[in-house]
């Protein structure tokens, strides 16, 4: 045991006799230190730790409406050895609180003590918990079905377009919460997703936005989004204009009777569009009688068409009784 000390001192103390004396002295100090440490670690100490809290097993059909503490301070008493050991093993990152053990919507000190003690080793004794009790306030859980609103930011490559609507599956989701919170919720938004220069069909899972209320939760966390992108082409047809809403006893004469309808549609739907697909009308109720031209209106357009243009846009008309 002396040899390493002796060797260590040889470079500082050239005198052999002195070196022997100091070696003995240092050995004694070392042994005394070891005894002191053993004694100190054997004593009991109290340390305060802060734990994050996770609440589990919420009662079914109930919604927590207050905000219980997210952290608790726990004073732990144990021997120096165990407390020192905690420094290396580390503390549990979270302390779990099981809400199925609730009594009268409260967890008193004793109940908290029981729950926390089980999650720590037997060698640690909890001496203080702050807060020493946790109150929970519940309201009846209700359900509501709301539409999903997608937050897609899409740009389509030139000469391509979206066929039909963007599909959201499911288009409606169930959400749970208290009655008064649910009444304000009219839809549920998805996360934002940007898709640039799309030129082919796109399908993805898109997360729903997290709830802003503790008491409000969607029953699913994502939906599927389908964007059907196809190459588009230009079409043109001649549509017969009809007069509508003409009061009984009156007639409307207008000219021309036909209008050229130009539109853009997907290649796959191009052959499905004929002259009857577009309904073009002169609506008596919308005529400005100070003007001798009446506006041609598109009463209906087939699905999957866009950029619809009419030529001419107005016709001469005359009303007679």
């Amino acid at each position: 045991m002396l040899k390493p000390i002796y060797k260590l001192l040889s470079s500082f103390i050239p005198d052999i006799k002195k070196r022997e004396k100091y070696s003995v002295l240092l050995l004694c100090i070392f042994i005394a230190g070891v005894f002191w440490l053993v004694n100190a670690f054997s004593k009991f100490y109290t340390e305060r730790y802060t734990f994050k809290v996770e609440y589990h097993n919420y009662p079914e059909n109930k919604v927590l409406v207050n905000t219980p503490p997210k952290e608790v301070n726990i004073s732990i008493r144990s021997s120096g050895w165990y407390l020192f050991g905690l420094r290396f093993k580390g503390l549990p990152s979270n302390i779990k609180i099981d809400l199925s053990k609730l009594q009268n919507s409260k967890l008193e000190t004793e109940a908290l003590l029981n729950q926390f003690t089980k999650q720590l080793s037997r060698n640690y004794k909890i001496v203080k918990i702050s807060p020493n009790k946790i109150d929970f306030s519940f309201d009846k859980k209700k359900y509501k079905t709301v539409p999903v609103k997608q937050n897609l930011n899409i740009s389509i490559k030139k000469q391509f377009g979206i066929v039909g609507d963007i599909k959201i599956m499911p288009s409606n989701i169930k959400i749970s919460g208290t009655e008064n919170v649910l009444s304000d919720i009219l839809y549920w938004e998805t996360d934002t997703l940007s898709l640039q220069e799309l030129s082919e069909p796109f399908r993805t899972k898109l997360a729903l936005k997290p709830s802003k209320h503790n008491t409000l939760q969607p029953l699913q966390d994502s939906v599927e989004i389908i964007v059907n992108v196809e190459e588009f082409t230009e079409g043109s047809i001649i549509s017969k204009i009809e007069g509508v809403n003409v009061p009984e006893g009156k007639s409307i004469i207008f000219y021309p009777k036909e209008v050229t309808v130009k539109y853009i549609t997907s290649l796959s739907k191009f052959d499905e569009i004929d002259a009857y697909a577009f309904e073009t009308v002169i609506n008596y109720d919308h005529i400005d009688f100070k003007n001798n031209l009446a506006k041609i209106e598109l009463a209906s357009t087939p699905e999957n068409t866009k950029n619809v243009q009419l030529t001419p846009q107005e016709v001469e008309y005359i009303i007679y009784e």
Partner: protein
Amino acid sequence: MNKPLLKVGITGGIGSGKTTICKIFEEYGIPVYYADEASKILIQEDRTLIEKIKEAFGNDLYDKDNVLNKKLLAGRAFSDKNATNKLNAIVHPAVGKDFDRWYNKQSTPNVSYVLKEAALLFESDSYKSLDKVITVLASEEIRIARVIKRDQANEQDVRARMDKQMSDDEKVKRSDFVINNDGSQSLIYQVNEIHKKLCAFSEIM
């Protein structure tokens, strides 16, 4: 007994927009006889007319199924003025008879007149059997542009066809009503005014 319907002619130079005007009159429920269209059908279907054309311009104009070779007829009938007059002298009376047959069949209620649309109403003298005549006018530039677009023709051909027709001034002198179809006036309003006058005229007849 019902009053006889007025016979109203509507004419105008090539590309003046006669058919457009007739379509507006049709909106008022007025029956329209399209003489040029009728003549195209008659020279294909009227046996008497076919025989006369064969006699005047050659049997080879029609095949064994009596289908007319239009190109051959155009080459022979429009090569000189005499030939054109000869063809018109054969076709126009046939069209006149066809119009009479058509007129006798008209029994549309609440209608006081019928229209006969023809490009050569004055040239063929058929205007003499009509009660009133409307002439449709448009500037030469507009008419040429319309015909080039409609018939895919060139300007020279269009001008050649225009030269064979009576001048607009002469037509206007012989007409009871004039419609300007050069975009400067509302067609529908002009038609409406003439329609009202024709209805009133039929009342006092």
